[in-house]
């Protein structure tokens, strides 16, 4: 079934979207077990992100698991916030970033 939601995502495209680093704080620590339950939680986030045209690329988690740095592609900061709200995730700050590849400078 091709309803409009997917079309809208394709229209906007993923390539030209800005990239954001989203810093999150989890005072009680974050632990997603490598189990089916954990996988389901993560995939749930991914699918709700899709509704806001937001793509979660990956995250870095601090050793104490209280802070995450998540890399996202999204149309604008508001979409990042809407996606976070849908997933009940906190946001400490959003920073617009671009990639610097050290090996590009040979």
């Amino acid at each position, binding site marked *: 079934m091709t309803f409009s939601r997917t079309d809208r995502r394709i229209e906007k495209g993923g390539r030209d979207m800005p990239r954001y680093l989203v810093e999150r704080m989890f*005072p009680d620590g974050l632990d997603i077990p490598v189990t089916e339950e954990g996988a389901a939680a993560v995939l749930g986030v991914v699918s709700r992100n899709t509704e806001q045209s937001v793509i979660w690329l990956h995250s870095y988690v601090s050793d104490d698991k209280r802070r995450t740095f998540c890399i996202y592609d999204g149309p604008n900061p508001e979409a990042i916030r809407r996606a976070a709200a849908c997933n*009940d995730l*906190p946001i400490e700050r959003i920073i*617009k970033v671009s990639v610097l590849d050290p090996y590009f400078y040979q």
Partner: protein
Amino acid sequence: MTDLLERDAFIAALDGLLADAGTGDGRLVLIGGDAGIGKTALIDAFCQSHASTTRVLAGACDALSTPRPLGPLLDISRQAGGELQRLLTTGANREPIFGALLNELGQHSQPIIVVIEDIHWADDATVDLIRFLARRLSGLRALVIATYRDVEIGPHHPFRLCLGDLATSRSVRRIVLPPLSEEAVRVLAGSSSLDPSALHRQTGGNPFFVAEILASGEPGMPATVRDAVLARIARLGSDARAALDVAAVLGFRSESWLLTDLLGSGAAALDACVVAGVLRPEPGGFAFRHELARDAVLDAISPVLRCALHRRALEALRLTADDPDALARLAHHADMAGDREAVLAYAPAAARRAVELQAHREAAAQYARALRWSREWEPAVRAPLLEGFAYHSYLTDRHTEAVDAWTQALAIWRRVGNPLKEGEILRLLSRPLWYLGRSSDAEASISASLSVLEPLPRGVELGWAWSDLSRLRMLAGESEAAVVWGKQAFLLGERLGDAGLQAHALNNVGCARLELGDEGGSDDLERGLAIALAANLDEHAGRSYANLVSMALISFQLARAEHWGEEGSAFTLDHDVETYRLCLMSQRPVQLFLQGRWSEAVDLASTLLSRADLSPLYRLLALTVLGRVRARRGDPEAAAALDAALALAGPTVDLSRRVPVFMARIEAAWLTGDHACAEAEINAACVIAGELNDPWLKGELAYWRWQVGSSAKPPSGIAKPYAQQLAGDWARSAASWESLGCPYEAALALADSGDEAALQRALAEFNQLGARPMAAAVTQRLRRLGALGIARGPRPTTRANPARLTAREMEVWDLLAEGLRNAEIANRLSVSTKTVDHHVSAVLAKLGVRTRTEAAHARALHAPSHRQSGELAHAT
């Protein structure tokens, strides 16, 4: 199950929507796809499978150069009969016609399917009809199916704008039909000698193209659909070919009587066309199997023959000239036949009919058609055509064309010597001139109008000239002059009993008085509204609501803005006053922003910005709010939004809209700690603000100067909360902001104190709002004071409000969950039942539920007392 390949999932989706409709929860489904992709075939198969239980009413938009206004509804009315047909054939106005359709759809216990095909060709009135239906579907047992070719709907197509509107509606679904797979093409090719992969490649999986190639029986593969159609037709006899030519000239559909009339004994060949699969029989006539087939046939007719056929069609159709809805068709054939007399008779008549149905674009096109055939040396014929064209171009925002045509009409009336007309047109000209940014030309035009009209007996033309002059003065910031001219216009309107003139003039006077700080302006605006409502002048009422809201916002009367905004939105929605509905919607982000409802503010602002038809002025408002929220949250791209806003804040924009852009830029710079940049923006603001009257903007500007450390004495006449702040009375200032309902501004006042308790309150508020830069600044101040127990930002709880309902919608949801009926909710909240209806629909839509019971059930799940934890947190 149907015979169609790869379409079962779509049929099943339609079945589901029909079932929804059957429960009284009507649906509109938009089916998009390329020409020949099988939209009609899908609908035919679907309707066929429900033929025994469900009534179908079908109509199509036509591909005439200027379509018949409400063409699809004319088709439908013939099937429905009754009041609807009576109204349409007697040339009634739009409102009763739409109402009759609603009655027709509402009176059956069985669901009804309404099909409107090819809305990419829709006239303005049909676009409005679809919008009208979409908004009234809940409670109707109707499934409305509309088809369109996506490639033909560009960003400025009138239906694109409508699509944007409908996208958020709970009742609307979209289906886009994909091409067939190679597998399906293989099945269709069957025993044909053609290579299925090559056939799939050549046709792109387009079912119509595949069928045409297979039917053409050519050994090679025709390169285009047209070639395939022509190859198929080439195998028919010359009689059949002649019959097809006539049918193609008449249109996609043609009536049997008309074909028989034109073809004589040749009509027998129509059967051969049906057998060959080019035409298909319909009740009362024939239709091409596809518009692509008609196109191919029409293009292959020689110009001479085509002209002759149009001439014969015109002669045959003249018999129907007393039918108001045959006029567009007659004008089309007259134009194509090159019959000047007939064009000049039918095109203006078709234009007048389009005006009755409010199809302004089509009206302008018919006037333009007549103008092309009129002669320079017949001014009496040309002048009214030019005026009609100019007026409807102006109404559809084509201001350059309007200026050009009115200028030509003006020259004619001057030559003929009709000063009343001359004065009226000079006045009208000032409007598009102003919209084009030519304000001095607009001024000159209205002055010329007055010097022509003032020596004449005082009529309504003079009153309107005064009122338009008043509006121009108001827009130029010359409020005193605006009041003087507006009052004069109002008194004349009162004497002549012209409600429209009175309402227009009172709007100007009210806004101008408020700009001068005279509270009596509110009474003028409310009186203007009452006059417009009493006289059923929907546009004037819409303008009053828009002005009431914008004037309330300028002076931070948020509750008042909310009240008029709610009432105005409900009114403009019910009366389909689109311009002012959009205007009211565009002001709402400003109100939400000031109330600290930032998420709602930016959501609405983003929705508005995605509309192609949003005027630069409203774009500016939305961008300013977006930029300010980003800056206050410490989010990236605040500068990008505010740069875009600045680019729109040119000198033609009035100061009350222009100055806030600079305020936003000052604030954004200040929040990032860049005081040099903030000072530069302050200087830029001072240059354009000049002799600013408004106490609120004056106050804000003084506040920022004070924040960056200016020692200049604050000016007099600034609004109270700013004055209190600048006098060092942060406590009173905070209280003033609180009573205005502006939480951020209140916290900002507290943040300037050296008092620990006040700073803690400010911090709590900033944390609550998600205002990171200010929260950080206040935390630092508290640390310097050596405060203990500084709160960290609370994690905003969103689960209690999963669907991002507005505060008002939350209230309505709560009351609904208590089992209250809409009228009771209305009583409880002191708003109209209609307003509650709108809120309830919004709540159901946002929650994605169908019924109140489901909504109430969902409320129990999300009760704040036992708030659900997030899934991710749950996994820990």
